[in-house]
């Protein structure tokens, strides 16, 4: 959760309302969600993905896991048995819809979201009921949404709300924990609320006269206030990442000029190699280019620069940052997780460390979730939209093989700025070539070694 949340909305530990008996009206699913789920997580990819919703200490049998997967995109509509006392006491304005629903697509990628669920369900509601978690909308494929708000088992079915439209229900939690190739991805799978409630309305209409009237009680979608654009464009930098393909290798990149894309050397390692760059929809242009510069293997900076055959239109060109503020809110945009099957994902966090050699920043660390495929992608200041750095890697523990998405390393854009500026103005690569002769302390930092406090003395 971000530190800026307001005062707690409620003191914890107050008396819960007594459990109320309910009846199941229907089980429903959103066909479009299931279709996108099958496209992104089915087929060949199915082997790689796992969505755990059992409590951590539960051994889950194969059969149980299959049951969970089958039920993943299903929801239940319940009607509570009337409580005469409550019915009597409820004033007129308390009857009817209890939430407002955001239309599908009203919340763009990168928008802050608030997830509200009860970890471990009814296990200990006095303590865990309505626990909040904040993140952003990381990606969307139709009604299938992803957020980097941290959620735990038991929060399935919990609501996810937007700040704009204020307090609108955007989605419900489908799977709090997603594992790709046995690594926790740090994203929560959601189903958009609007299409789900449309499906519920349609189903109630088909179940018979008794339930027909209930369809009218389901919450409406929030209209867009007059004069505002139909679609909130979202933060412009969310569309700045491009997909970079070099032979069979692909990764992310960012355009710093209409014909200049920066990415990582391990994405486009060979100078003069041909590269295909894809901008993100809706202006998804595909343009060829050529690697004009790639650092040597010995350089601490894993950077490559691509010159495009034609201008990249419609992709916002970021302002390059000159300063870094530890603790500031940042966002990473990259094609990790889904690669080319989906547009780039946005994840949020803070700038957790600026590692310097002397006074010069040589490495940035963030708490955003960064996955394989995000390399070369942009790191932005969420507040200003300035480009802070180029994502180079996340962290892998060589002993256990575990990967830590939320500890990652970026090359500060200030390291690249002089060389990029010189190349753009004169076509001379000299400034960029200086990256190949970075000083030893910079190498030590990027090898994640402890800096030597003093040069070891010779024993001769």
């Amino acid at each position, binding site marked *: 959760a*971000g530190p800026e949340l*307001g*005062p707690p909305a*409620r003191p914890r530990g107050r*008396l*819960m*309302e*007594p*459990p*109320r*008996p*309910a009846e*199941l*009206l*229907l*089980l*429903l*699913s959103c066909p479009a969600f299931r279709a996108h789920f099958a496209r992104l997580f089915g087929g060949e990819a199915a082997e790689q993905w796992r969505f755990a*919703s059992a409590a951590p200490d539960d051994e889950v049998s194969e059969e149980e896991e299959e049951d969970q997967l*089958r039920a993943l995109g*299903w*929801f*239940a509509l*319940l*009607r*509570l048995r*009337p409580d005469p006392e409550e*019915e009597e*006491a*409820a004033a007129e304005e*308390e*009857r*009817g819809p*209890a*939430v407002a629903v955001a239309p599908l697509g009203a919340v763009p990628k990168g928008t802050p979201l*608030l997830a*509200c*669920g*009860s970890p*471990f*369900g*009814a*296990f200990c*509601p006095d303590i865990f*009921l*309505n626990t909040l978690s904040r993140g952003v909308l990381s990606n969307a494929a139709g009604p299938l949404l992803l957020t980097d708000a941290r959620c735990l088992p038991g929060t*399935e*079915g*919990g*609501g996810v709300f937007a*700040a704009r439209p*204020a*307090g609108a*229900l955007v989605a419900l*939690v489908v799977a709090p924990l997603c594992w790709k190739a046995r690594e926790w991805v740090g994203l929560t799978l959601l189903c958009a609320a609007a299409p*789900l409630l449309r*499906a519920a309305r349609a*189903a109630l209409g088909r179940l018979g006269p008794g339930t027909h009237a*209930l369809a009218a009680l*389901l919450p409406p979608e929030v209209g867009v206030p007059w004069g505002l654009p139909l679609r909130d464009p979202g933060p412009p930098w969310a569309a700045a990442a491009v997909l970079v393909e070099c032979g069979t290798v692909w990764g992310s990149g960012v355009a710093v000029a209409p014909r200049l894309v920066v990415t990582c050397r391990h994405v486009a390692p060979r100078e003069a190699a041909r590269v295909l760059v894809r901008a993100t929809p809706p202006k998804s242009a595909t343009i060829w280019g050529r690697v004009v510069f790639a650092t040597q293997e010995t350089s601490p900076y894993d950077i490559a620069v691509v010159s495009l055959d034609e201008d990249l239109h419609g992709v916002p060109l970021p302002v390059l940052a000159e300063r870094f503020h530890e603790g500031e809110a940042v966002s990473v945009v990259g094609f990790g997780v889904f690669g080319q099957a989906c547009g780039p994902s946005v994840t949020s966090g803070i700038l957790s460390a600026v590692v310097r050699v002397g006074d010069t920043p040589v490495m940035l660390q963030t708490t955003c979730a960064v996955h394989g495929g995000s390399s070369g992608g942009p790191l932005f200041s969420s507040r200003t939209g300035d480009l802070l750095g180029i994502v180079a890697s996340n962290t892998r523990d060589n002993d256990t093989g575990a990967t830590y998405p939320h500890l990652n390393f970026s090359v500060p854009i200030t390291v690249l700025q002089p060389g990029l500026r010189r190349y753009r103005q004169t076509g001379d690569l000299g400034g960029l070539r200086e990256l190949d002769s970075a000083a030893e302390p910079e190498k030590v930092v990027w090898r994640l070694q402890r800096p030597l406090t003093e040069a070891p003395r010779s024993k001769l």
Partner: protein
Amino acid sequence: MARQWGPSMRAAEKAGCVVSASRAGQAEAGSWSCSGVILSRCPDLVLCHGGIFTPFLRAGSAALTAAGAAFLPGDSCGDDLRLHVQWGPAAASPAGRAERGRPGLCTPQC
């Protein structure tokens, strides 16, 4: 920024609930539970995740992936299904009712 989240936090607080499913007469077998959203009041309608209903499906989880199944009526689960929904004071109380809920307190006329 804090102000930005006020309405969302209130909405989440009011709509949030937990749902538990158990078998009639088998309390000791434990229950399945998840989170949910209160959609409307009087009548109270709640939307929650379907995963906790799988053990109760008459035709088993295969019913969920049967071709063309977009929804299943309530009676696709067995008669022994017992459901309970619980929420916090913010969701229950129009102003004042939560106070009413505290036995032993009163406001004597003076």
